[in-house]
């Protein structure tokens, strides 16, 4: 069994309005000086968020990656060298040494909020 650390959300920060994000795709937001990639899986009605910086070469590009799923698990592919990452836990699916930080997301009153520890 893998253990999952549930981090406690200290604060929900309003990122932007739902319509600011593309459907079935991602965009970057700036929160407390940090770049966060937010993904809108419109068809499934789900949202995910990760750090925007790709751990491979450090490019600020994860939000511009193509989203999709692998056997039902949501993922994103970095546009630079196509490393793919699970959006559930941030693990790199193509190269074990990399890991993305993930953030909880909620939508309320037409706005997207990111949970910060």
């Amino acid at each position, binding site marked *: 069994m893998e253990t999952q650390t549930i981090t406690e959300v200290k604060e929900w920060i309003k990122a932007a309005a739902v319509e600011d994000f593309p459907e079935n795709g991602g965009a970057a937001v700036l929160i407390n000086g940090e770049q966060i990639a937010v993904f809108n899986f419109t068809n499934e009605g789900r949202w995910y968020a990760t750090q925007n910086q790709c751990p491979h070469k450090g490019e600020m*590009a994860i939000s511009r990656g193509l*989203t999709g799923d692998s056997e039902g698990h949501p993922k994103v592919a970095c546009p630079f060298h196509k490393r793919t990452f699970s959006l559930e836990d941030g693990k790199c699916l193509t190269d074990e040494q990399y890991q993305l930080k993930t953030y909880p997301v909620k939508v309320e009153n037409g706005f997207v909020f990111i949970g910060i520890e």
Partner: protein
Amino acid sequence: MKKRIVLIGNGMTGYKFCEKFVASSLVHEYELLVFGEEPHPAYDRVHLTSYYTGTVPEELLLAPAGWYAEHGIELRTHERITSIDRNSKTIISEKNLSYSYDILILSTGSSAFVPPIEGVEKKGVFVYRTFDDIDKIKAYIPNAKKAAVIGGGLLGLEAAKAVLDDGLPTSIIEFAPRLMPRQLDPQGAEILKSKLEEFNLEVMLNKSTKCIMGNGSVQGLEFNDGSKLDTDLLVISAGIRPRDELAKQAGLEVHPRGGIVVNSKMETADPGIFAIGECVVVHNMVWGLVAPCYEMAEVLVQNLQGDSKEFLGFDLSSKLKLIGTDVASFGDALVEDKNIKTIVYENKARGIYKRLNLTADGKYLLGGILVGEAEEYNMLKQVVNNKMVLPENPEDFILGARGGEGAAGISVGDLPDAASICSCENISKGQIMQAIEQDGAEALPLIKKCTKAGTGCGGCVPMLDDLLTHYMKSQGREVRKTICEHFNYTRQELYDLIKVNEIKTFNDLLATYGKGSGCELCKPLTASLLASIWNDVIVKHDTIQDTNDRFLANIQQRGVYSVVPRIPGGEITPDKLIVIGQVAKKYDLYTKITGGQRIDLFGARVDQLPNIWEELIDAGFESGHAYGKALRTVKSCVGSTWCRFGMDDSVSFAIEVENRYKGLRSPHKLKGGVSGCVRECAEARGKDFGIIATDKGWNLFVCGNGGANPRHADLLASDLDKETCVRYLDRFLMFYIKTAGPLTRTSKWLSELEGGLGYLKDVIVKDSLGIGEKLEQEMKELISHYQCEWTTVVRNEEMRKKFRHFVNSDQIDENIKYVPMRGQKMPAKV
């Protein structure tokens, strides 16, 4: 100290010996010293014609130059051995160096046989055997207007087709009353002749050449019957002559008709000297195909190790490659005996002839001939070689069901495990199945890598495919190149589904034919298909595009983008040049001239892109689609307007073609070139399509490539007027767009296209599928929907909004940093 084996000849057989040597116990006992007269290490002579059509030598080497040293073999290329001294066990090379041996092996191969015709020494007379021969022919071609090939056998036909495809009208001259007299019967040869004539190869039979005319260089041929033929390039392919001169000099027995005589253990009369390959006579004949030569190498290694093995003869079935039509003969092809039964199928209109020779009781197949259609060749050869009992209606073999599955009830599954599938490498069905089943080699390249099957002449590749398919089916699986886990379709199937059902978005396609959320494979692929079919503005589908297409610019280090305005044909006015300079200066962009004759501006932030483009568009520029799998550039030379050699105005034509296809989305990027004469300054033959002016019009070449896998484009049609040239291009590009796999460049597409260049010519030029007009119509439709994507974006506020780094802030990405370099800027390392 180790004893020493000296091997003379680094050809195909010599290399095979090296390979078997390093895998044997001989390495512990002997060192191996190899001499090759040619400058290159051993290469794949069987595919010499692909060298002719542009494959680089490195790709044809049987092993990279460094392989020999890595395996402890000393290879001395470019050093011919001139004599053998059997008493002192030494050899002497042309450099006057002498080397001693404990064991000497001759694998000197053969040379092209040149009959003693008067005038053979003239300039413009060639043979077709080595890289060097090809270089010489190629260098001479620009001086020639008409070619002839003496010899209508296997090699002569191959050479003739190569020269013809290079753009020269060509005649084949055969002494016998029919082509390929050793493989074909009169009826089959007749059909082949008419096939070749369809390609404009002139075939002259019953001709014996009296002399080669011309003053210093060849100008024509005179035949014994008094007739003459004009030609200024002649290739002689009248058979081979084993290279037995060294053996003869050393006093070893040679055959009266040439060839070093050895017994079935590859031994000469001298216990220290052996000979293998095309230079030997064993069982009273020379074995002029690579498979038996390889077998000899194997026999010798076994014997030297002390195991006993004999060369027992070999199947000489052969299938002709690269001549644009299939020809094969196998087993006993020509038997004329009252006690056998023959089944013949002939269709003159379609140019097909098939003949099967059966035993009188109809139970066994003895051999046969296939002309015009030879899919059944591999299977029939197996049936002969494995003495398999024929099914009830053997004629179904040549009439009915075809292909690996169940030609007349026999399928690859029925072959015994011992059946030799790849005769070049002598790999049995059992070995291949083991690789598939136990080593998981479930794809063609893996099978090749695991077993070496299919790496020789390549003739068994279709059968490897059949074995794999058969295995997969038996496991309830399929081998289809489906896109990914979300779509159980091939690219071509999706193309048709989108078109027929008028699907306009990825979401619709996913909902109707796919599952899940899609991924980084099927999304851009669908984007490309939608663009290829509807030519709709791709920004509407931004989130399914690869990042370059999403932001209509190429992503570079640190996530900045580059901007490439279209400069058709590389022609630009001073005013427009100034605009580019001003824009680059204003936005502080790094500028560089590209290989495609345009100017690349690097270092734009995503939020700057619309502003930069707005300024460029206002000055009359359009998107250059440098970011897309689409038409990039049509490069041109300056052509007849300025160049003193120019035959025609290449710049105007390049501009016309670039403007015609600009924005055209395709399976991969597309590049073109137009040169004003054969000097080819635009390097058009390194492009997906190349157009070269001649004194009679334009030659159209297709499927070339630069980049990592360079390949010269092949001639599709010659001396065309502009209109026809564009029509053929329309057809060609549309056919490619419709049928190629995802991310497949035209050159790779052609190499995988069944029937190859011959088939492509049939479809495009002869319209053999009857789709020419439809393809042209579809292209017209696509072209009519063209719009400059960037113009659409900068004129649309909603679309412009997509170009920003953060959706919740106007701040710029602070991660982007630059350092200066030669008066410009470059991105700083992360």
